[in-house]
C-alpha cells in the first residue's frame, strides 16, 4: 500500500512505527499482565499529538487526513490493541462532538481532548443492548430545573471508562434518542472496572452507572431524536476505521513475528521457513495483509472524500481485517509452537486480542447482515 501514500503520509507512518517500537512493543506484554496501561505512555501519546490526530488545528488537533489517522492506528495496533483503544474512543467522542456539538461545546471540550489532557469514553453499549443500539434502556427525564435532564441507567463494556474524564452518553427521552456529555465526578456517576477479559486486558473497560445524574442543557449534544441516527454513527464510523486499521496492525504483527521466527528457528539443518506447510501459512498471512491494507486505505480515502460509500467501505475493511487477524494470530501461534502459547510471546496476546476485534464496533455477523442488505439493495443498478 506504500505506493498509495504521499511523502508526508510515509514520513508520518515511519514516525508512528518508531514511536511504537520504542514506547509500546517492549512493554505491551507487561501491560497485558497487569491489566493496566501506565499514565506515562498515555502522556507520551498526548505529547506526540496522537490523541487529537483528526481534530482541526483551531481546536488544538493535528488536522491530519483520514489516511494518516488510519496509519497511526495501524502502527499502534502493531504494538498493542489495548493502547490503540485509547485513541479509538478518544476519536469517537471527539469526532462526534466536532460534527454535532455547539460552538460552545467544541470550544470547551475539544482542545483538552485534542491535547490529551482529558480522555473521553463512548458510553453506548448496555448490558441488554450491544449491536442492537435501538434497544437502549438508559433513560432521560425532564428535570424541574431550567431545562436540565435527569439520567438513569447503566452502560457496560465501555472501553477506557476507567481513565475517562468525560463520557459521551446515549439514552432515550421517551421515544427520542438523546446524547449528552457527563464529566467524571458528576454526582450519581459510578465507574466499576471490568477485569479479567480474554483480550484487550489493559484497555480499561468498565461498567458505568448513572443514578439521577443531572445533565444541564449545555451538555446535551445535538437535537433530541437524532442521537442514534446521526450522532452515534459519526463516532462509530471513526471507531470502525480505527478498529479496522488496528486489526491490520495486529495482522502485520503476526506476519512479522512469523517470518522472523521462520527464518531463524532451526530444525536440524533446516529452518522452520523451509517447511512447505509453514510457508503456506505465512503466504496466506501476507496475502491477507496486502488485501487488508487496500481495504483500509480505501475506507480511509472514502471517509476523507466524504462519500456515502464510506460507511460500507469501512464495514468491509473492519470485517476483513478482524477476521484475517483471528486467522493470522492462530497461525502465528501454530508456527511458534509451544513458545507461542506462553504469555512472554506477543503472538499469545495477539491471539487473545484478535478475537475481540471481531466483536467490538459491531460483530462480524451484524456487519455481514448490514453489508448483505446494502449489496442486495444495489441490485437495482444492474437493471439500468
Amino acid at each position: 500500500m506504500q505506493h498509495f501514500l504521499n511523502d508526508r503520509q510515509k514520513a508520518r507512518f515511519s514516525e508512528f512505527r518508531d514511536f511504537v517500537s520504542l514506547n509500546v512493543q517492549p512493554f505491551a506484554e507487561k501491560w497485558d499482565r497487569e491489566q493496566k496501561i501506565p499514565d506515562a505512555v498515555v502522556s507520551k501519546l498526548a505529547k506526540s499529538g496522537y490523541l487529537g490526530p483528526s481534530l482541526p488545528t483551531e481546536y488544538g488537533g493535528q488536522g491530519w487526513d483520514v489516511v494518516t489517522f488510519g496509519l497511526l492506528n495501524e502502527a499502534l495496533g502493531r504494538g498493542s490493541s489495548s493502547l490503540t483503544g485509547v485513541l479509538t474512543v478518544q476519536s469517537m467522542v471527539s469526532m462526534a462532538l466536532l460534527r454535532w456539538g455547539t460552538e460552545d461545546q467544541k470550544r470547551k471540550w475539544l482542545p483538552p481532548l485534542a491535547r490529551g489532557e482529558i480522555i473521553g469514553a463512548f458510553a453506548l453499549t448496555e448490558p441488554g443492548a450491544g449491536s442492537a443500539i435501538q434497544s437502549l434502556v438508559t433513560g432521560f427525564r425532564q428535570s424541574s430545573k431550567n431545562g436540565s435532564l435527569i439520567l438513569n441507567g447503566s452502560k457496560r463494556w465501555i472501553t477506557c471508562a476507567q481513565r475517562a474524564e468525560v463520557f459521551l452518553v446515549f439514552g432515550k427521552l421517551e421515544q427520542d434518542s438523546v446524547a449528552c456529555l457527563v464529566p467524571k465526578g458528576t454526582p450519581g456517576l459510578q465507574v466499576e472496572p471490568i477485569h479479567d477479559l480474554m483480550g484487550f486486558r489493559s484497555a480499561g473497560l468498565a461498567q458505568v452507572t448513572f443514578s439521577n445524574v443531572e445533565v444541564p442543557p449545555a451538555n446535551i449534544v445535538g437535537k433530541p431524536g437524532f442521537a442514534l441516527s446521526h450522532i452515534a454513527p459519526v463516532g462509530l464510523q471513526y471507531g470502525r476505521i480505527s478498529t479496522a486499521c488496528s486489526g491490520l496492525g495486529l495482522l502485520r504483527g503476526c506476519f512479522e513475528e512469523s517470518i522472523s521466527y521462520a527464518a531463524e528457528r532451526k530444525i536440524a539443518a533446516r529452518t522452520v521457513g523451509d517447511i512447505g506447510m509453514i510457508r503456506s501459512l505465512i503466504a496466506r498471512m501476507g496475502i491477507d495483509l496486502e488485501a487488508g491494507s487496500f481495504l483500509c486505505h480505501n475506507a480511509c480515502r472514502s471517509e476523507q472524500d466524504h462519500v456515502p460509500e464510506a460507511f460500507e467501505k469501512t464495514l468491509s475493511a473492519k470485517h476483513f481485517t478482524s477476521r484475517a487477524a483471528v486467522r493470522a494470530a492462530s497461525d502465528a501461534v501454530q508456527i511458534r509452537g509451544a513458545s507461542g502459547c506462553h504469555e512472554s510471546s506477543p503472538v499469545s496476546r495477539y491471539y487473545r486480542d484478535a478475537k475481540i476485534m471481531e466483536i467490538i464496533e459491531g460483530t462480524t455477523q451484524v456487519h455481514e447482515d448490514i453489508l448483505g442488505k446494502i449489496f442486495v439493495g444495489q441490485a437495482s443498478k444492474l437493471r439500468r
Partner: protein
Amino acid sequence: MTSVTTAAESGIKEAVKRFILSSVNIPDLGDDDNLFETGIVNSLFAVQLMTFVEKTFAIEVEMDDLDIENFKSLNATVAFVSRKNGHRVA
C-alpha cells in the same frame, strides 16, 4: 409541498432519486413517498443520504437542520437542498 418547478430543482430531484434508487431495491420512487415510515430505507441510510446531499450539492447539514421533515421524501429532500442553496421552491 407537491411540486418543484425550476430547472435547478429538477436536477436536484433527479440526482437524489438516482442515488436512492441505486441504494435500495425498489422499482421506482414517488415524489412524496415517505422514505422512513414506509420502510423504503432504514435508519442507517439516513447518514448516507445526508452525506450524499452534502457532497453532491456542496452544503452542510447543521444541527438545526436535523429534522425528519427535511429528508422524509424525495420532494422534502429537494426542498431542503434548494433552501440551503438559496433556490426558490414552488
